[in-house]
């Protein structure tokens, strides 16, 4: 069976946690959740994962700890965490919006709210997952800064690691910490990535191709982590 785009995205999300060691992985979204579990089953066995509510669970589903919301805030402040958040808008410096579209006093569309994005981004490692890469999401400027980008004063612990979309992987490894293309997923035309991004990306030769999952990873994704194929609902193709 051919490797699907969703499976490439799961492996790219797993790679977000490379080298993280014994910290809390907080993936928001189904595919980042699979990615974190995949990382724990392969290269990052010490990752700590919750059930999305108050329990910490081992890879085989046994209870290993208690993490109610009040303790999550302790972990955020302590910094032993890597969160993968979604974004309604994200700009070239990694400013993220999940609060509101339009004027904050009278939004054209009220979204979730700041939630933990301000605290996450100034305290612990942060990545983003964009399941539908488009100019509506990757914008020139966000309407409300929920997650803090590299052009803001953000204190000593600010670290935006990467952005994974359904088309490509990005980081902020330029001298002025603008977003740059790391790799495009297999089968994606680079021009499509440029066309679907609402700001200029630095062009520096041909970008790499995102790796495909290994046989072992594919087997884990298909038979252990997501046998019902729910990943294809978040990313098609």
């Amino acid at each position, binding site marked *: 069976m051919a490797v699907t785009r969703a499976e490439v995205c799961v492996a790219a999300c797993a790679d977000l946690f490379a080298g993280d060691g014994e910290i809390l992985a907080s993936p928001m979204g189904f595919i980042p959740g699979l990615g974190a579990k995949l990382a724990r089953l392969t290269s990052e066995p010490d990752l700590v994962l919750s059930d999305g*509510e*108050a*329990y910490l669970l081992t890879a085989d589903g046994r209870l290993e700890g*208690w993490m*109610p*919301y*009040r303790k999550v*805030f302790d972990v*955020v*402040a302590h910094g032993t965490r890597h969160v993968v958040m979604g974004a309604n808008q994200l700009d070239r410096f990694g400013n993220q919006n999940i*609060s*509101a579209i339009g004027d*904050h*006093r*009278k*939004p*054209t*569309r*009220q*979204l*979730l*709210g*700041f*939630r*933990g*994005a*301000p*605290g996450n*981004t*100034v*305290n612990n490692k942060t990545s983003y997952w964009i399941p539908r890469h488009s100019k509506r999401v990757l914008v020139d400027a966000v309407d*409300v*800064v*929920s*997650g*803090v980008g590299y052009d*803001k*004063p*953000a*204190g*000593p*612990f*600010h670290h935006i690691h990467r952005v994974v979309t359904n088309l490509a992987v990005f980081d902020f490894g330029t001298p002025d910490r603008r977003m740059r293309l790391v790799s495009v997923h297999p089968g994606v035309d680079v021009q499509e990535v440029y066309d679907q991004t609402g700001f200029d990306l630095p062009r520096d030769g041909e970008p790499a191709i995102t790796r495909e999952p290994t046989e072992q990873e594919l087997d884990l994704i298909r038979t252990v982590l997501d046998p019902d194929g729910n990943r294809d609902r978040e990313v098609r193709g």
Partner: protein
Amino acid sequence: MRDKRMTPADVVAELSDGMTIGIGGWGSRRKPMALVRAILDSPVRNLTIVSYGGPDVGLLAAAGKIRKLVFGFVSLDTVAYDPYFQKVRQQGDLDVTELDEGMFQCGLLAAGHRLPFLPIRAGLGSDVMRTNPELRTVRSPYDGEELVAMPALHLDVALVHMNRADKHGNAQYLGPDPYFDDLFCLAAKRRYVSCEKIVDTFEGPVQTLLLNRMMVDGVVETPNGAHFTSCAPDYPRDERFQRLYAEANWDSFADRFLTGGEPGYQEAVRAWR
């Protein structure tokens, strides 16, 4: 020891227009919904609501009870956005203090500790500072780091829902998460706890006794009183009913479920089911 038992109507009779009311629980989890419904039945208005928002905020917003909302998010968990809150916000009809959710906890803690503020890193660099221009920063006298001075979130009243309580105000949560109900009570002048069941003797680990009677002024027995939010382990969220709420036309929802007081509500839910 004092007997603090009350009815939801008794609690609401102690509220007045313009009060600042903190509501416990989290999103669509263990919300004091019977007490919220009692507010809907009352003439009380112009409230400042302080909440990790769920359908408590949606209901009060839809009924026009909120003048100002202090929040970090409003979500129904399995339904991303509360449509009534969304509508009121998009009409520009609400003053808001929108915070990072850790700042929110910090503000409750400051109020509970009778401190004017507590320092926190969350908020720096974000539009929390732009949209709340009254927020100030403070510089560490030790190393000069600049931090947000999160002001105390003082509450006139706290409303929380627990699994068990005794008639004196000791109260217990039996689910996996206490949320912030103890902090809401410590931050408030008057504290009202609804519960699934009033008991004489508590069972379970002592660590589940979140509230002691020094933190509580009134106890209300409201079985199924968190409906349609979850109240583990007594019951899960009523997902079907929550969807009905989220998709309904407000007037028809209110006519069908919110006109007969709490017994009428519970009866209408049983009939719907």
